[in-house]
């Protein structure tokens, strides 16, 4: 629901509620005023009757004077004190055929030594009429309120909210990779100006964090790779100096360690880059082609390791993914399948527009398969792998909103990735 629609609805609900209460109050106030007016008039009438009685005029009991049927004058045969009573009474109304509430004023008077009871009653306006008038007035007011609210709503969404909508558009088009902040624009509304300032601060922070992390990962990589390059070079120079077999084995083992360190640094740097969203997924990668070609590339290793490979690869399966990430993801998966295989083992690769499944035979796992997505988690702690391959695969899948799961059953290890394929053009 749009903000403005919600606002109008709340406004109208409150209005109806307030006017309802207002209506009830108005009804009682009007009735009270009318009753008071009637009381005054009836008292005056009683005074006039008293005056006439004092003048010696006689009335028959329950006889009306001057066409007024609602006047009772009674001479009493017991002494009374002078007093006036005001009561409400229900009187049958012939025309409306219902009881109507009337005001009744009764007075006890001693006139020329004789006690009298004088009473009169009546209604100036019927209560129905008051209710009707109040409801009519309220309906008019509500009608005008609705027209007003709609008018204001139109104005607000049109003019008043313009800066807000503009800000929303700018946020929508914000791209971290452009490294441009969203400078605050002044508006005539304090809250919108605040919002814009806040967004400027936030984007400035986001851009600077992005830059810092990017620089840091590149510098860290540089600082690590340079000494590794030096060490590697020195070892290569060392092998030129007629080493004994034992010495050469040490050198070779050192070279392997250096290689591992360098791979580790590279993998960490890739993970950082993925997590810093430095790869934009605005390109399409042809998975079918990548996988087919890579299997060809690896065929030598596969045959050499005595591994069978079975494939069921549909053609033209494309995903919207950065090509570098696509390659890293697949290479890691495939190399894992080769590396952790057993002699005379099998690899199965299934690719269709909905999923990529790679399974391989291997030793049973000693840990929960899902834990292998964690960094530096390895099934065999002595293995030469660095334990980042599957973390990288998982991060890449996650960033592309692909579901990924790892299952291990008997000697089969299966990784399944649900894809969001791009429709072939």
């Amino acid at each position, binding site marked *: 629901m749009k903000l403005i629609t919600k606002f109008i609805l709340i406004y109208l609900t409150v209005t109806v509620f307030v006017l309802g209460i207002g209506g009830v109050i108005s009804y009682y106030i009007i009735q009270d005023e009318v009753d008071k007016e009637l009381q005054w008039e009836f008292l005056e009438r009683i005074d006039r009757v008293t005056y006439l009685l004092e003048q010696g005029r006689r009335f028959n009991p329950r006889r009306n004077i001057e066409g007024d049927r609602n006047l009772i004058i009674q001479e009493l045969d017991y002494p009374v004190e002078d007093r006036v009573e005001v009561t409400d009474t229900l009187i049958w109304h012939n025309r409306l055929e219902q009881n109507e509430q009337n005001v009744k004023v009764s007075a006890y008077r001693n006139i020329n030594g004789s006690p009298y009871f004088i009473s009169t009653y009546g209604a100036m306006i019927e209560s129905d009429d008051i209710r009707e008038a109040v409801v009519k007035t309220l309906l008019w007011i509500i009608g005008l309120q609705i027209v007003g609210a709609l008018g204001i709503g139109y104005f607000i969404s049109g003019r008043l909210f313009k800066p807000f909508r503009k800000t929303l558009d700018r946020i929508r088009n914000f791209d971290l990779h452009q490294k441009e902040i969203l400078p605050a624009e002044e508006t005539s509304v304090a809250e919108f100006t605040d919002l814009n300032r806040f967004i400027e601060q936030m984007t400035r922070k986001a851009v600077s964090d992005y830059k810092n992390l990017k620089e840091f990962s*590149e510098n860290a*990589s*540089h*600082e690590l*790779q*340079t000494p*590794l*390059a*030096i*060490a*590697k*070079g*020195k070892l*290569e*120079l060392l*092998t*030129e100096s007629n080493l004994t*077999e034992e010495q*050469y*084995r040490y050198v*070779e083992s050192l*070279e*392997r360690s*250096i*290689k591992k360190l*360098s*791979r580790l640094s*590279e993998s960490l*740097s890739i993970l950082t880059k993925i997590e810093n969203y430095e790869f934009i997924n605005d390109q399409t990668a042809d998975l079918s082609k990548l996988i087919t070609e890579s299997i060809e*590339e*690896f065929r*030598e*290793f596969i045959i*050499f*390791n005595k591994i069978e490979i079975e494939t069921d690869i549909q053609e033209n399966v494309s995903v919207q993914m950065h090509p*570098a990430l696509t390659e890293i993801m697949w*290479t*890691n998966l495939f*190399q*894992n399948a*080769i*590396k952790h295989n057993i002699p005379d083992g099998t690899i199965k690769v299934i690719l269709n527009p909905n999923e990529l499944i790679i399974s391989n035979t291997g030793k049973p796992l000693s840990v929960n398969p899902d834990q292998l997505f964690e960094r530096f988690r390895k099934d065999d702690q002595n293995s*030469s*792998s660095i334990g980042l*391959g599957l973390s990288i695969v998982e991060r890449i899948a996650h960033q592309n909103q692909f579901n990924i799961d790892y299952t291990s059953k008997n000697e089969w290890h299966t990784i399944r990735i649900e894809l969001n394929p791009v429709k072939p053009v």
Partner: protein
Amino acid sequence: MKLLIVEDNLDLLENMTTYLEREGHICEAAEDYRQGFDKIMSHSYDVVLIDIMIPKGNGLDLLKELKSVKPQTGSIIISAKNSLDDKVNGLELGADDYITKPFQLPELQARIKAVTRRNQHEGNQIIEVHELSIHTNTREVKVDDQTVDLTPKEYDLLLYFASNKNFVLSKQTIAEHLWGDYVDHLENLDFVYQHIKNLRKKLVAAGANDYIESIYSIGYKFKV
């Protein structure tokens, strides 16, 4: 061959010059942008190696200067940032090759030779080692004018050996040269041995001497 190495890290510089000078190259060094710029402007080199991150400037700017005054000079970018941007920028600016730290010295040597071969005229694209001749434009190998039938990997292997004559090449180095990052995760490097065995067999069968020598079956040397 005359080389200029622009690199601020002295240890790394020493590694490169030591290795390359053994092969008979003349190496000059520049430690920062200023020195590099002066040397480029005043001398001629066959190949210039430029590190991207150097003091007092950027290696890519230096490459731009080099390409504007001496476009025929071969150039190789050295970078520690395995950053795609740098690679693309470097190659767009006219660098002939791009190598990432930590690189192997034999790999650097092979790349330098490949760059010079490409920059030279047709006639020089043949590497001759006694009775062996490697025709790099047609990717053919001949023993006394008789073509030897090699697989692409065997050809690359021989070329790599010929570019690093008399140097010890470890299995790891060879595997990385032939398969690049693909072997990164592979433990068993015995397939390198398989390829070398096949190559030796084919060359000997064609009448060539067996130049490839095994060093404790850990590494190999192309001994001439």
